[in-house]
């Protein structure tokens, strides 16, 4: 299960197995040297892949660094600490939390630390920033590297002073002799010398109970650059001589280009047109001229008829993908147990496609220098995008450099490199740097979506509330969080791959949101079937102490069990665990009985992810996950027809706004005895079922769809 460190890549990360976006026609380190004097420490992983996520289409080639290096840092003779990690910053604030990890172990102020992130030339190979893996893996590796650097510095001081190293302590960028009280700055120990050390991943670390910097609420380390508008996101990058690019988009998914009349566009000044197979793009000195040139192209496309969202769920059930069904789990005999049950329940849950809609759309700036390509782009997988570029242009990976400036959010939606490839293709033709920023409409249509799905649940229980049988089938939406954490002796759990009318892929929390919605809605329905309070019913069937802990904490803070005070008021709960975190969410709703409009009034979230690294940032992530989760729970659904997206703009696609925000209360359970887990995803999974269950409590109608849609009462 997902608490297991050897977890596999979930099947719903469809985008990672997709074929390349374009097939272009064939056309045609010296590492560490630049650093100078100081201390260099790098972390050697026992199994380079073991701590990474595996399963993409192929191993990278032409690495500039061995795969076994997880992270490294350099302490220069000027006292500056530079940390190198392939992880990237998309708003989850790991630039801050990783700085804290280094500061903690190296004993230097946070503002002395410079983080180099997601630059394929400078940072160690990394599969990508996803799956809530930064805190459990990179945070640990950097702590180990920093601790080793600290030990090395203490050793240097001990040798210089000819004293026992056990007398020496490191603090605030200095080594101090506790007996003689003399002290030396780290930088002074390093003058003109270079030390390189590789460390295994097993060095002792400062336990969470003794943390001084970690465990504290540190604000975003480079916040000043953001409140002043100085930070350059990928879409803000520019180079001298740069052109702007635009792509001609087909009228339907999967369309092929039959003919292209470029006559009018060719007459436009400073416009160049690039056609390569189905790829058609233009470059121009400004975005506006490029847009006009695209509008002046006359193209004829051919496409096949495609299903619409109206027949989506039927389509998914009827179109198996043919592959083996994965993530199967079976114990006992569901059939026998169901036959002996006092109550049986069957329910189907439908989950729509939704869009990530990161506020910064995909963007890339590409520059060729001979056969060498450099691309600045917003991606959660700079090394993956490097592979995609190398493949698209048939060049070795060591000729491609991808840089990832801190990006305007992603939520699992920026794992792929299509924009980078498009910009690079245009730049190759133009022989000048080209920037391409997708429009909001392009982002809504040509990115990938969170998978839609159908979930069938069948269960049987005794009248005392003991669940005997549990059968759970997820069609297409995914296998993350598919296993039940309730203790049920007879289970059959299956993920079914199906064909998908739309391009789909990872989304924050993956299918854990859909699977928890189905499971926790079903649990509520079972509780009502035997007239047991939903909290009591859960605890009766649940042994896991960490989960019991969050359910009890959320219920206590919420005041679970109190009487309703108004018509249309309802209370509900939902929870579970994912990616090493445990969450329980209690919700109060107000439902308008005639319009069936649901207003979420109050949300109480109890969350536990081991030892907390940065409490305020954790609250920020939990609040954000709840706010984002409101959209998928109540409004967001992609509408499509015949290969076109019908509601691909913010005026048509309803995302959470200021007035939607309920009272949000967060209870943090800090388990300093447990390793820290990531927290970007798990906190959102309890919200949707808690809302659905609260709606039932309010008006007696079951929510079985995401987004939750309750048909108006018959007149």
């Amino acid at each position, binding site marked *: 299960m997902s608490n297991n460190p050897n977890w596999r890549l979930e099947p719903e990360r469809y985008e990672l197995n997709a074929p390349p976006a374009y097939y272009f026609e064939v056309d045609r380190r010296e590492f560490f040297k630049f650093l100078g004097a100081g201390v260099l420490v790098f972390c050697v992983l026992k199994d380079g892949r073991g701590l990474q996520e595996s399963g993409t289409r192929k191993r990278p080639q032409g690495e500039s660094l061995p795969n076994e290096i997880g992270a490294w840092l350099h302490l220069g003779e000027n006292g500056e600490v530079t940390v190198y990690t392939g992880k990237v910053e998309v*708003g989850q604030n790991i630039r801050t939390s990783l700085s804290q990890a280094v500061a903690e172990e190296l004993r230097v102020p946070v503002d002395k630390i410079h983080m180099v992130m997601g630059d394929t030339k400078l940072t160690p190979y990394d599969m990508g920033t996803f799956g809530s893996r930064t805190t459990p893996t990179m945070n640990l590796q950097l702590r180990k590297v920093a601790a080793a650097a600290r030990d090395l510095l203490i050793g240097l001081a001990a040798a210089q002073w000819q004293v026992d190293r056990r007398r020496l302590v490191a603090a605030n960028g200095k080594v101090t002799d506790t007996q003689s009280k003399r002290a030396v700055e780290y930088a002074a120990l390093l003058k003109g010398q270079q030390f390189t050390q590789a460390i295994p991943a097993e060095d002792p670390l400062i336990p969470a109970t003794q943390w001084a910097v970690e465990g504290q609420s540190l604000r975003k380390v480079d*916040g000043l650059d953001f409140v*002043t508008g100085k930070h350059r996101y990928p879409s803000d990058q*520019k180079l001298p001589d740069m052109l702007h690019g635009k792509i001609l988009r087909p009228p339907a998914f999967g369309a092929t280009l039959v003919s292209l009349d470029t006559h009018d566009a060719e007459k436009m000044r400073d416009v160049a047109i690039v056609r390569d197979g189905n790829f058609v793009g233009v470059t121009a000195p400004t975005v*506006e001229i490029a847009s006009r040139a695209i509008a002046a192209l006359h193209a004829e496309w051919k496409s096949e008829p495609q299903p619409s969202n109206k027949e989506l769920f039927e389509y998914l059930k009827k179109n198996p993908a043919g592959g083996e069904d994965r993530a199967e789990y079976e114990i006992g005999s569901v059939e026998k147990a169901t036959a002996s049950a006092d109550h049986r329940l069957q329910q189907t849950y439908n989950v729509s496609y939704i869009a990530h809609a*990161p*506020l910064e759309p995909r963007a890339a700036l590409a520059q060729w220098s001979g056969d060498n390509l450099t691309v600045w782009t917003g991606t959660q997988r700079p090394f993956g995008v490097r592979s995609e570029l190398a493949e698209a242009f048939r060049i070795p990976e060591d000729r491609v450099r991808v840089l990832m400036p801190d990006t305007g*959010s992603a939520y699992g939606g920026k794992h792929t490199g299509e924009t980078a490839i498009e910009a690079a293709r245009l730049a190759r033709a133009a022989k000048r740097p080209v920037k391409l920023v997708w429009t909001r409409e392009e982002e809504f249509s040509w990115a990938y979506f969170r998978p839609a799905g159908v979930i069938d649940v069948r269960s049987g229980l005794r009248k005392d509330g003991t669940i005997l049988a549990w059968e759970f089938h997820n069609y297409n939406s995914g296998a993350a969080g598919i296993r039940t954490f309730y203790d049920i002796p007879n289970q059959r759990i299956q993920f079914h791959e199906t064909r998908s009318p739309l391009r789909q892929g990872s989304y924050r929390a993956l299918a854990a949101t859909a699977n928890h919605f189905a499971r926790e809605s079903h649990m509520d329905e079972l509780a009502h079937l035997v007239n047991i309070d939903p909290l009591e019913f859960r605890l009766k069937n649940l042994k896991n102490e960490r989960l019991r802990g969050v359910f009890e904490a959320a219920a206590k803070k919420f005041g679970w069990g109190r009487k309703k005070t108004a018509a249309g008021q309802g209370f509900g709960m939902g929870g579970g665990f994912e990616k090493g975190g445990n969450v329980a969410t209690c919700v109060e709703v107000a439902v308008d009985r005639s319009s069936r409009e649901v207003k979420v009034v109050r949300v109480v979230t109890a969350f536990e992810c081991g030892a907390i690294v940065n409490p305020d940032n954790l609250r920020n992530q939990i609040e954000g996950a709840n706010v984002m989760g409101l959209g998928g729970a109540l409004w967001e659904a992609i509408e499509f027809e015949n290969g076109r997206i019908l509601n691909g703009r913010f*005026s048509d696609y309803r995302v959470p706004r200021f007035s939607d925000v309920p009272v*949000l209360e967060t209870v943090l359970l800090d388990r300093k005895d447990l390793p820290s887990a990531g927290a970007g995803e798990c906190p959102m999974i309890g919200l949707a079922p808690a809302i659905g269950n609260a709606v039932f409590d309010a008006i007696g109608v079951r929510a079985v769809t995401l987004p939750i849609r309750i048909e108006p009462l018959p007149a």
Partner: protein
Amino acid sequence: MAKIPLNVNGSVYDVDADADVSLLSVLRDHLDLTGSKYGCGEGQCGACTVLIDGNPRRSCITQVGSVGNRRITTIEGLVQDGRLHPLQQAFLDEDAMQCAYCTSGMIMSSVALLKTHPNPSESEIAHFMEGNICRCGTYPRIVAAIQKAAKAMKEASQ
């Protein structure tokens, strides 16, 4: 194409652009003021918000030719004499951001809000800021930052 004079953050520029080009493009691509962001191109998300004569305007749907000689203020123009605007400071203090792509627009809208509502309630803030989207969901922190800045500005003026 004609020379269009623009008054931005106290300086006057002559911009070579067609009158129907968006103010956002001119700010970002001609004047290299990239603090104002593109988010939707239809005035729905607020990431491109600037002040025109003190009023909040969506620069992505404002044609540059329509601005005339009115004063434009962008996020880059908020710092005065090296000091952050109280709203910039409050956003920092409350950590009212995650990816922060919406932050410029949020701050510019808030500046306008506090001009007309120096002591806004939570619901007044929500109503006024409804057109600004934060996909990371930091809305409660932004509300707290606005109220904190309101208090600081009130105290500073006393």
